[in-house]
């Protein structure tokens, strides 16, 4: 039996490491998607942000975040301790667990990068990411995945792989930021109409979406958190298949909807539709194919209308991350109550509201402090010229610029 326990330990740790590596690859997906849906004059800063946010998240979550999330049994937050001190697991490797969790944190931070693209200052953004991943994300994560349930307030709340804990948190933090940041120059005219700012590379955006889709198998599949038995493996396989199905339904639904609404299929909406399906199913990818299909179908509708809705409010989100991660993170979390008889709608709603309120408030204060200290928005002239040249001195495609 001792050998069997060892095998379970090895396989579960391997699952976390393998799934974590897949999720890490999502950082590349976010970078490509964001670069593709924005203008090439800002590509260097976008790539830089995505690279550094991953690095900053990794450092901050290791230094303090993991302990705040999983250390100890405090009601509001875990131990104020450092570098995983005082934490160990009997059934899998601590470092495998840390690695799997740290890539989730980076995912939440990546959501923000897309929303604030093309006008955010690099250092202001990175400071925000550092605090988010060290403090804000771990505290709210402690209430659900950390096991505290916030003194019973979030009792019964269910979020399998993070529709709320990861994706909505990224969405709320991004919403707070974009409200203080404002829209890109020229996105809305004086009559409130939208001037679409076209993305520079749809092939890149599509590649990014496929990378994210691939990474999501690790995101949801790894969240089974055990691979020691045949049932565990069945469960992982079912989650993989359900995840794939939700994305498929999201993409197809968005395609049909844009064909009906605009008489043409909008690829960017289809990309967002697939991602919306993935976000929605993340809260309960273990509930079977029908649940995943419905999650994805509704997500495909929601994402199209919410992109239009945010534009009506003049909330400028270049990549649609608010619609994908925030709106569908909420939808997916609430939908758990449809499929899981042990979960009620009220439990889910309460969890969504508590996490949302905390994350939005904390993020708003943090963004505001950064705004009045070092500033969050680049100068108007820099924005017009493209932030790449002014912030980095580089151009993504120098052969195509006038200076050549």
């Amino acid at each position, binding site marked *: 039996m001792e050998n069997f326990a060892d095998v379970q330990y090895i396989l579960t740790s391997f699952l976390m490491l393998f799934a974590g590596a897949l999720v890490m690859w999502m950082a590349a997906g976010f970078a490509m998607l964001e670069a593709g849906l924005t203008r090439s004059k800002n590509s260097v800063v976008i790539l830089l942000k995505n690279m550094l946010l991953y690095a900053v998240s990794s450092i901050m979550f290791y230094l303090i975040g993991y302990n705040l999330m999983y250390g100890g049994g405090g009601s509001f937050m875990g131990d104020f301790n450092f570098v995983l001190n005082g934490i160990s697991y009997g059934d899998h490797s601590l470092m495998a667990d840390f690695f799997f969790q740290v890539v989730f944190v980076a995912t939440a931070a990546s959501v923000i990068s897309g929303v604030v693209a093309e006008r955010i200052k690099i250092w202001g953004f990175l400071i925000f990411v550092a605090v988010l991943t060290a403090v804000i994300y771990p505290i709210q994560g402690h209430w659900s995945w950390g096991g505290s349930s916030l003194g019973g307030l979030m009792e019964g709340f269910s979020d399998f792989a993070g529709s709320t804990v990861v994706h909505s948190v990224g969405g709320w933090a991004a919403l707070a930021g974009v409200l203080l940041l404002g829209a890109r120059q020229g996105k809305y005219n004086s009559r409130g109409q939208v001037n679409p700012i076209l993305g520079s590379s749809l092939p890149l955006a599509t590649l990014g979406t496929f990378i994210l889709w691939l990474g999501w198998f690790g995101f949801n599949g790894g969240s089974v958190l055990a691979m020691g038995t045949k049932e565990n493996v069945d469960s992982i396989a079912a989650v993989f298949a359900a995840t794939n199905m939700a994305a498929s339904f999201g993409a197809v639904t968005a395609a049909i909807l844009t064909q009906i609404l605009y008489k043409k299929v*909008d690829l960017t909406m289809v990309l967002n539709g697939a991602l919306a399906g993935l976000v929605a199913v993340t809260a309960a990818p273990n509930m079977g194919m029908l649940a995943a299909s419905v999650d994805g179908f509704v997500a495909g509708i929601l994402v199209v209308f919410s992109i239009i809705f945010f534009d009506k409010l003049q909330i400028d989100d270049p990549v649609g991350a608010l619609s994908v991660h925030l709106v569908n993170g909420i939808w997916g979390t609430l939908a758990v109550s449809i499929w899981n008889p042990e979960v009620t709608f009220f439990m889910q709603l309460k969890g969504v509201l508590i996490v949302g309120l905390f994350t939005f408030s904390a993020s708003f204060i943090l963004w505001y402090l950064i705004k009045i200290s070092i500033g969050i928005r680049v100068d108007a002239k820099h924005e017009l010229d493209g932030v790449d040249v002014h912030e980095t001195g580089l151009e993504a495609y120098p052969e195509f610029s006038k200076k050549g």
Partner: protein
Amino acid sequence: MNDKDRYVASVRKARAEHGKWLNAVKVMVSGFEKNKDLVALNQSESPFGVWLNEEAILLSTINSKAALIDVEEMFNECYSLYHKIYHRLFNTKNSSLLSSVFGINKVSVDDLKLSEHYYEELVKKSDQLTNKLRVYENQVQANGEEKFEGLYAKETIFIKEESVEIKTQRYYRGSLISDD
């Protein structure tokens, strides 16, 4: 009115549009107008820019290209000066906590003086531009009607065909793509 007269009229109209544009910048610099969208930041969206890019450049084969290149360069310089003025007047950095909370974005005296200085340069550059436009107009007038009309008709057909093709409605993320 023949094609040549129509084109000459469009040159004059473009000159007048540039005058209006200059006045709008003056209103901004003088502080009477706080609306930063009053003058388009993108030069191709201003009425003169539209004329230059769509009508003048397309019909440049019948005219002196050199004059038009000069006009284009001067217009670019005008816009560079306007961008400097815009940067001084509408810099998004809020100076204090209170101004940030209440959305007050008071322009500093230094910025105001600098924007006035840029405006003076802009007026000089605009004078050069309008003079060059008069030269251009004379060059157009010097062309024979037959030569002009033949080319104008051909280009007009080209412009119309292109417009019809682009006019089919296209959307990007739920928003209509403008063909203007």
